[in-house]
């Protein structure tokens, strides 16, 4: 009896679903983006604004008439920051609507897993501001694009900044720097660079790991209280950042001496600490919170005023929202570049998208045109340099909002390049990859 009922229910559902599935959703020229997002779980407070910004820019592109008339379409899939779910999402979405154009997982773990699959599926993996630092080398990592920033570059800028504060690199000798990091591949990325820099300038680097998700840091901060480092670098994500700030307050470590990476420098990290985080500094991956920028005003006007925006209005222009927006913008612009070569107003494939990403050239005029003037600097990528821009600056929390407090810095090529080459050569050897030559790039 029970079984019969179940079977009846199941067949009903099946009939309904087949109806839903066959609804045609095909128009002529559409560019499909699989969206791997996380709006639940331990890292949701940070994942949500990023995803909203990302989505809003795609919507804005459509409101502006698409890229030469080609509409952006997308489908979201929730990864929960879990690698296996992320891979499943990717597999599910990559073939839909004629194939995914590019994928941005916003998770170092998922990035590592997708790096394996990208060359097979021919879908570029864009990791604006995260992922492997050595994937900047396009010769080995043909399908990875750590656009606008890698962790090594970020750490390098931080060191430059404290050197400037101290009055020169030679003054760093004997200083103590502590790195409080998320105990995962993400948090460990900057260590190699910081060790290199520590060797160069003779400062003392101590490493303090914090276990996922980072809600228990008492011992870490007791150690900081004991060692009294001159600077603390914070390489956290999600709740770990606000906890670190609270513990810093509880142990009386001056927040002015704390510097976060760009993933530790947004509103969710400081919001519920409030005044306790006053004076805390963080890297700005080019942009900071940009409520006054033109693009934000355009989004408010074209999307949110009509009730088509994603997420709450107050979020538009916040740091992580802008990060999502810029990540989205970069891929849309790459589509534009690729269309320039492979046919305007046509859908492009993942392989053509890669060409677009490798020939991205956003000058000041282009940025101004998009309403991003003053938000970021020009970006120019090439076949061998998948980062495109190595500039960053520092912003500081004043208890209510983020303000820029430094000039632009550029990551030092003399330090970064050899490290990137060495690490990517090792990867190439491990995975038996033959690096691309400049001739290959011309294809």
């Amino acid at each position, binding site marked *: 009896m029970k079984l019969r009922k179940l079977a009846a229910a199941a067949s009903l559902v099946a009939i309904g679903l087949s109806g839903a599935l066959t609804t045609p959703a095909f128009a002529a020229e559409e560019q499909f983006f699989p969206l791997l997002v996380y709006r639940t*779980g331990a890292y949701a407070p940070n994942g949500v604004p990023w995803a909203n910004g990302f989505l809003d820019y795609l919507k804005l592109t459509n409101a502006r008439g698409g890229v030469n008339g080609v509409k952006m379409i997308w489908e979201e899939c929730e990864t929960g920051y879990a690698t296996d779910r992320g891979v499943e999402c990717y597999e599910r979405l990559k073939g839909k609507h004629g194939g995914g154009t590019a994928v941005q997982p916003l998770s170092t773990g998922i990035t590592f897993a997708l790096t394996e699959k990208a060359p097979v599926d021919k879908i570029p993996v864009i990791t604006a501001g995260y992922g492997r630092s050595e994937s900047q080398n396009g010769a080995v990592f043909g399908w990875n694009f750590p656009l606008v920033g890698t962790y090594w570059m970020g750490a390098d800028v931080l060191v430059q900044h404290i050197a400037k504060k101290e009055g020169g690199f030679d003054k760093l000798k004997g200083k103590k720097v502590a790195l409080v990091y998320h105990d995962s591949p993400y948090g460990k990325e900057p260590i190699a660079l910081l060790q290199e820099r520590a060797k160069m300038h003779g400062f003392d680097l101590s490493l303090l790991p914090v276990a996922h998700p980072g809600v228990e840091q008492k011992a870490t901060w007791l150690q900081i209280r004991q060692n009294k480092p001159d600077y603390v670098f914070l390489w956290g994500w999600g709740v770990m950042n606000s906890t670190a700030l609270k513990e810093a307050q509880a142990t009386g470590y001056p927040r002015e001496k704390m510097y976060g990476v760009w993933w530790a420098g947004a509103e969710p990290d400081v919001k519920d600490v409030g005044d306790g985080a006053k004076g805390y500094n963080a890297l700005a991956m080019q942009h900071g919170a940009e409520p006054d920028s033109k693009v934000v005003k355009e989004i408010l006007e074209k999307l949110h005023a009509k009730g088509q925006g994603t997420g709450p209005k107050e979020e538009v222009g916040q740091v992580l929202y802008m990060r999502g927006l810029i990540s989205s913008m970069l891929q849309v612009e790459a589509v534009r570049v690729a269309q320039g070569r492979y046919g305007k107003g046509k859908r492009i494939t993942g392989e053509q998208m890669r060409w677009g990403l490798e020939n991205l050239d956003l000058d000041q005029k282009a940025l101004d045109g998009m309403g991003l003037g003053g938000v970021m600097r020009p970006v120019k990528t090439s076949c061998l340099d998948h980062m495109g821009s190595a500039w960053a600056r520092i912003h500081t929390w004043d208890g209510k909002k983020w303000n820029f407090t430094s000039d632009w810095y550029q990551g030092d090529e003399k330090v970064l390049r050899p490290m990137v080459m060495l690490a990517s050569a090792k990867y190439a050897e491990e995975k038996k990859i033959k690096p691309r030559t400049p001739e290959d790039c011309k294809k």
Partner: protein
Amino acid sequence: MAFFLETLLGGLMSGMLYSLVALGFVLIFKASGVFNFAQGAMVLFAALAMARFSEWIPDWLGMENLFVANLLAFAVAVVVMFVVAWLIERLALRYLVNQEGATLLMATLGIAYVLDGIGQTIFGSDIYKIDVGMPKDPVMMLESVFEGGILINKEDFIAALIAALLVISLSIFFQKTATGRALRAVADDHQAAQSIGIPLDRIWVIVWCVAGITALVAGIIWGSKLGVQFSLSTIALRALPVVILGGLTSVPGAIIGGLIIGVGEKLSEVYLGPYVGGGIEIWFAYMLALVFLLFRPQGLFGEKIIDRV
């Protein structure tokens, strides 16, 4: 020396906070033999309720007073936890009486999923704030004795006091009230308790309610310390070594266990950590518990289980 004392104190205070969560485990295990893996999810759920209601209630009623708002939110959160407790008993555990430990453990994990999902659906998955007026800045003590003094975290100190208060009131409840005695009777022997007319179903609901309230207190303290969001549910994992060290069936065990674990993990991290690369506190806590277990397999204060053939 001063630093050692500081670490010790810090350890004792985190230990008290672990005990708060551990208490929830012990209460339920004692009365129903369920190893409640959902305790962490209950802490999160309670904290979310508290945080959100203290935000919503002033909006609804149009008042400003933070204290009254918090009080009302607390009351509502208590009611919410009672409903949760009742539902858990009514919908799940009632049907699982007399199952094996492992089955019950899995059932509570299932409940944890449900609570996580419902909590985030109703209350949202952003990071929220509980502001019960906890002081955040540290104070220095004994400055005349040690150079630089000893840093005491006022917030932790108050939290530890609240934990101690909760334990005392729970002890009174268990020792002096009729319901408390009935609870202990059920814990000792289900069938004997039933035969003298103690209604098992109701007792279990009460136990889950009490566990719900400890979850709420733990949630408020941890939430005001860390901010309320999903990761709060993972502190249950930090409380597990406390429970097995203290013994699954002992309330004082949860407190002593908490203190031992708190001190052990902080001292190990600070003094041993730097030599092996740091980040050892979580497994060290488990190892510590394990070492104790090797000498007393039922925990420090747990009841000795006698196997009969």
